[in-house]
């Protein structure tokens, strides 16, 4: 009888221990998940602050025409007539042989420069 009671007590204690262990693991898991989420959010916020930092500085620089870039690229549409001029110049020079290649080159470059004046 005494033996049976101690057996039941042992089983009950074991069950309680397992339940407590499960609860402990669950709490730990939940805590680490929250910590991970917080770390991700912090990283994201730091990125957002970096974005605001560069945007605000760029806006302030623009107010004095200050740019970190050394070169700028501008793209311009070419008129059809200008294209035709270039084409005719090129075809003429091609017909005159190797001696006129230089003039074709000069006229092409000349017309290109005129466009930018």
């Amino acid at each position, binding site marked *: 009888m005494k033996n049976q009671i101690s057996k039941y007590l042992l089983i009950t204690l074991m069950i309680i221990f397992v339940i407590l262990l499960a609860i402990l693991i669950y709490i730990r898991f939940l805590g680490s998940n929250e910590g991970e989420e917080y770390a991700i959010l912090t990283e994201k*916020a730091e990125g957002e602050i970096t974005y605001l*930092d560069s945007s*605000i500085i760029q806006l302030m620089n623009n107010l004095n025409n200050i740019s970190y870039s050394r070169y700028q690229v501008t793209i311009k549409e070419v008129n059809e007539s200008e294209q035709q001029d270039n084409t005719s110049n090129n075809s003429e020079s091609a017909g005159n042989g190797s001696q006129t290649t230089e003039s074709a080159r000069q006229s092409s470059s000349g017309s290109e*420069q005129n466009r930018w004046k």
Partner: protein
Amino acid sequence: MPDKVVVVVNKIGGNERSSDQSGGSSGGNSNASESTNQSEARTSRLAQVDSLLNSNYDDIPWDEISYGVETLYTAWPTISIDMKALNVGESDISSFSTTLDGVAQAVKVQDKNSALINLYNLYTLLPKYLSYFSSDETKLNVYNTKAYVLSSYVSANSENWGEMNTNVTNAINTLSKNMQSEKLNNIEKTALEKSYTLLEELKRGIGVEDKEIFYLKYKLAMEQLEIL
């Protein structure tokens, strides 16, 4: 327009490629290259950006600035939600919106000085936000250094040389705190030393009391600080 122009003509479809160079009267050091793609019917041109020493400071690209401000308006709601989640103070979050409105109003009426002041006020909120959730003192010092440099940049508009000098001195002192950090690797140390030297140069430049020289040195210092 640059004095010296290098023109490159590319004819796509054909097999022709030619180049020429024409010198200007003064033979300046600025170069430009130009290419024509006839099949796409457009011309592209690569040119050096104007020197700050000869720049036109009154020719402000307001359209570009307006677009930049609008982009900030678009990004802010998402950022403010994240800041709230990280327990950033409600008053600090709302003051960003208020100051951004001030920037927009200044840009709208094309008031350069007011736009500069409001943008600077906007910037000072960033290290404040960071201090709520980051314990990285090095990063915080870099933001505070930049804030001091920007403050001197704002003062440059009214040529307040005394205030500019104080702000750059504060920037140097703030950045020097990072110099003592033992966490830095060799690359970070070199970048930090370069920033420190450029800030000292900036301070020396203030002594000359020349706005263009200040802007030139400011650009170099700020470009380096953004790498940190």
